[in-house]
């Protein structure tokens, strides 16, 4: 029988490439804004040299725009760095709410391209689990895609972490969905990657049809 890790590895590389490409597009956008802001400052200076007037408020606005984009770029690079380091160790302890924030930031642009706003809701008490962080990120992206493309979203697609009732792990709850089947795992029939990811993570998926939420159970720890 094929090991789950062998099943998901080729697509895992594709996922890593997809996320990296999305990040690079976002960086290109921030660079473009800085390029045009700096270019406009040069244009205005050239006009001033020819006797035109410079509006100090405009200079301030453009400088502020550059500063904002530097901050945005720094955030993108920090997230990219965290994402890249997910593959460093096969198992690691994560704080679930913090992890969901990272997933939301990394996937936000791709979700927006598909027409959805992605948000990570703040959790209560810190909720730590030991898991395979790279594969968890990959599975969550699969569920985000399922939510957008199949279930449909109403406003923002939200993710939150909460302790699983009775302990033993964490629930990742997706809300803001239009419809949720009772047994969403059946959607993975024929999808070996998703099934492999669920198996690798010891995860279980179920739907709460009345509340229109999709719930992913993740165990507190894993056999390493």
């Amino acid at each position, binding site marked *: 029988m094929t090991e789950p890790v062998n099943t998901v590895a080729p697509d895992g590389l594709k996922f890593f490439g997809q996320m990296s490409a999305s990040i690079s597009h976002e960086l*290109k956008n921030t660079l*473009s*804004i800085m390029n*045009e802001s700096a*270019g*406009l400052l040069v*244009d205005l200076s050239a006009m001033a040299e020819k006797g035109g007037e410079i509006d100090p408020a405009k200079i301030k606005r453009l400088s502020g725009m550059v500063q904002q984009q530097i901050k945005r770029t720094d955030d993108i690079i920090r997230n990219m760095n965290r994402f890249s380091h997910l593959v460093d160790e096969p198992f690691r302890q994560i704080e679930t709410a913090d992890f969901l924030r990272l997933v939301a930031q990394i996937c936000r642009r791709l979700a927006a391209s598909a027409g959805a706003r992605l948000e990570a809701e703040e959790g209560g008490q810190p909720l730590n689990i030991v898991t395979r962080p790279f594969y968890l990120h990959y599975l969550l992206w699969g569920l985000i895609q399922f939510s957008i493309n199949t279930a449909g979203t109403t406003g923002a697609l939200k993710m939150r972490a909460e302790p699983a009732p009775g302990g033993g792990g964490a629930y990742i709850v997706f809300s803001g969905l239009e419809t949720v089947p009772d047994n969403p795992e059946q959607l993975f029939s024929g999808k070996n990657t998703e099934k492999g990811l669920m198996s690798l993570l010891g995860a279980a998926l179920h739907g709460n049809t009345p509340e229109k939420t999709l719930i992913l159970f993740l165990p507190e720890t894993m056999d390493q």
Partner: protein
Amino acid sequence: MKPIQVLLVDDEEELVSTLAERLEIRGINAEWATSADAACEKVSERKYDVAILDVKLPCISGFDLQRKMAQIAPEVHFMFMTGHGSPGGFTGKNTEADLYDCLIKPVDIEVLVEKIRNAIRRNG
């Protein structure tokens, strides 16, 4: 001579607003839109010579938007902007994309102006 009318479409407002201002300084009348709906509304309201679309817009690709806009205003000449690393990232694969001028972000304003003027010359 009538100034060239350009419409810039990208969901990054700071980018299109600043780029529009720089084109205005160079004698090109530029307006902008940050969504597909706003872009379609603008081309249905007034005449543009050139529309420059981002390849990746929320909910719709620049190429799909181009088809919608061309139905409303077939006389518009279209160009694309992309955050891809090189034009080969999307041209050469899509015969439709290969028909258009594609600019890589960050855009060189002088190259952009030249492409706009060339497009107007070509279209008469």
